[in-house]
């Protein structure tokens, strides 16, 4: 049971990032490989505001998210907008370039040190054999709240309908007066805010190091590809599934005979995508059709 709780914690961290990314991928068709760095920036800014400037935690978090949004907007203007209309795959390379620039900047400003937003032992609650800390519980709840509110907006409001229209067919939406260009920017920034939230959670629960950006990005992509292109809920579901697999893989005494070496824990995500993609190349919930 503890394993399930562990999976919930780890999955929540990944789900937000994966969700934001899925939206961007579904609408714009672009990969944003600078996402890990955006998460880090959200986390580091919050750390700085909270631990260095000693602002209250809530304010630090909000400002951290705002900072993440700002940098994401800059990312969009520099690395995505001039390119994605030209060809879908160009932002793949430009976001890699931008992520290098961000990496360099993060190193210069925050140095090569681990930072934790809430250091030390957390308050642990124990019930029916499961141990979980207050912060972790709050994180899981916060993630669920954010996801649910996004779901509500997406499916029940007119803004959500407009977004879905753009996802389905951009030109048709444009002809109906939906401001597709604005929505593109909005969605991109939203994905950045989600990523920043994920980064803040990691900073609270574990610690931030400049090099954790890339594995995060890869795991988020694993979730998206498995979930199917453009399918937001598929991506989030698979983020949790991957987290569960990772925890189970190492935690369970398989067939009562052996334990999987922990070194392969991260590889799970990767092998998982490989298997899914071989069985269902368009992802679990996508449609399989190859266009010229």
């Amino acid at each position, binding site marked *: 049971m503890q394993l399930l709780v562990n999976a919930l914690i780890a999955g929540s961290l990944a789900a937000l990032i994966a969700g934001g990314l899925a939206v961007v991928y579904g609408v714009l068709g672009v*990969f944003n490989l600078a996402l890990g760095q955006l998460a880090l920036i959200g986390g580091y800014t919050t750390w700085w505001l909270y631990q260095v400037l000693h602002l209250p935690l809530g304010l630090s978090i909000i400002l951290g998210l705002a900072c993440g949004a700002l940098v994401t907007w800059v990312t969009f203007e*520099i*690395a995505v907008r*001039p*390119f994605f209309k*030209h*060809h*879908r*795959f*160009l932002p*793949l*390379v*430009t976001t*890699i*370039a*931008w*992520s*290098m*620039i*961000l*990496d*360099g*900047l993060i*190193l*210069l400003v925050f140095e090569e040190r681990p930072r934790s937003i809430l250091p030390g032992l957390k308050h642990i609650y124990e019930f029916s054999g499961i141990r979980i800390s207050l912060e972790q519980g709050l994180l899981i709840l916060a993630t669920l709240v954010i996801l649910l509110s996004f779901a509500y907006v997406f499916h029940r409001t007119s803004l959500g309908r407009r977004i879905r229209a753009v996802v389905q067919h951009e030109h048709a939406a444009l002809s109906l007066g939906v401001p597709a260009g604005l929505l593109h920017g909005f969605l991109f920034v939203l994905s950045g805010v989600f990523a920043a939230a994920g980064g803040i959670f990691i900073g609270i629960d574990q610690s931030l190091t400049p090099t954790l950006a*890339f594995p995060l990005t*890869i795991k988020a*992509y*694993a979730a998206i*590809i498995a979930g199917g*292109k453009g399918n937001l809920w598929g991506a989030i579901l698979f983020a949790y599934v991957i987290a569960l697999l990772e925890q189970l893989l190492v935690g369970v005494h398989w067939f009562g005979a052996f334990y999987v*070496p922990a*070194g*392969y824990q*991260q*590889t799970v*995500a*990767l*092998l998982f*995508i*490989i298997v899914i*993609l*071989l069985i269902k*190349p*368009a*992802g679990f919930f996508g449609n399989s059709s*190859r266009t*010229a």
Partner: protein
Amino acid sequence: MTFLLHVIAITAMSAPHILGYNLILGKGKILHFGPLGTSIIASYVTFLVTMTFSNYFLGLLAGLVAVVAVSSLFAWISFRMEPDGFGVMSIAMHLSFLAVVLNWHSVTRGALGIPRVPRFPFLETPADFALFAVVIVVLWIAFLWVLDRGSYGRKLAALSEQEWQAKSLGIDRRTVHWVAFVVVGLGALLTNIQFHQYIFLVHPNDFNFAYLIFMIMVVVAGKPGSIFGCVLSLILLSFLREGIRFLPLDADVLGPLRLIIFGVILLGVVYWRRDVLFPKPRSI
């Protein structure tokens, strides 16, 4: 003088792989981000077999077989997927190979790497290596040139522009793409055999992402698909990378600065090359 020879040697050694990669990414427009995965297999298989049996020929043969197998694996996967899916998948495979190497200690010595790799008996000084590497590169370029200018090059370009139309003209996508992957594999083999014996070491840290990004940069900067453009950009970027060491800056500023400079260069170069790298598909 030795330093210059060393830089020439390293640049020439890395050329075969990057030139092969140029064929697949630049000309074929196939989003293959796993060439380092092929490198890992090439290096480890070749050198493990060589050192176990103390026989270079056996090692090279094993390496060749392994490389063709891995390239075929990549090719097969690329046939099953959409291009973006394959891009992410190839990264996943590269990371998986790396994880296997790191964890299978009994065979690969894991994170400790394989030190004191034997060299070819006729190669000793950096000058020897530089000369040998340049000779190999020239031969490889000649091979790629023939491939490029012949019908194969035309078929690959046709597939990258309009895939279904090309197929309807009788061009077999599977064969043409498979050959492209194998070419990358052979390039990887050539590069890695030379490189690891030169620095006497096979170590997992040599196969990380920074190098993939360098490869992408070289291919994008020199006109993607053009062999000579790629060679030129390789020479310039390699010298730039080593030349930055000579800047009189504080050491812990230099590192992040290098990242930023290369990021800016890559961004600028993609902007400049955006028409050639991924051309707007022409519709009727």
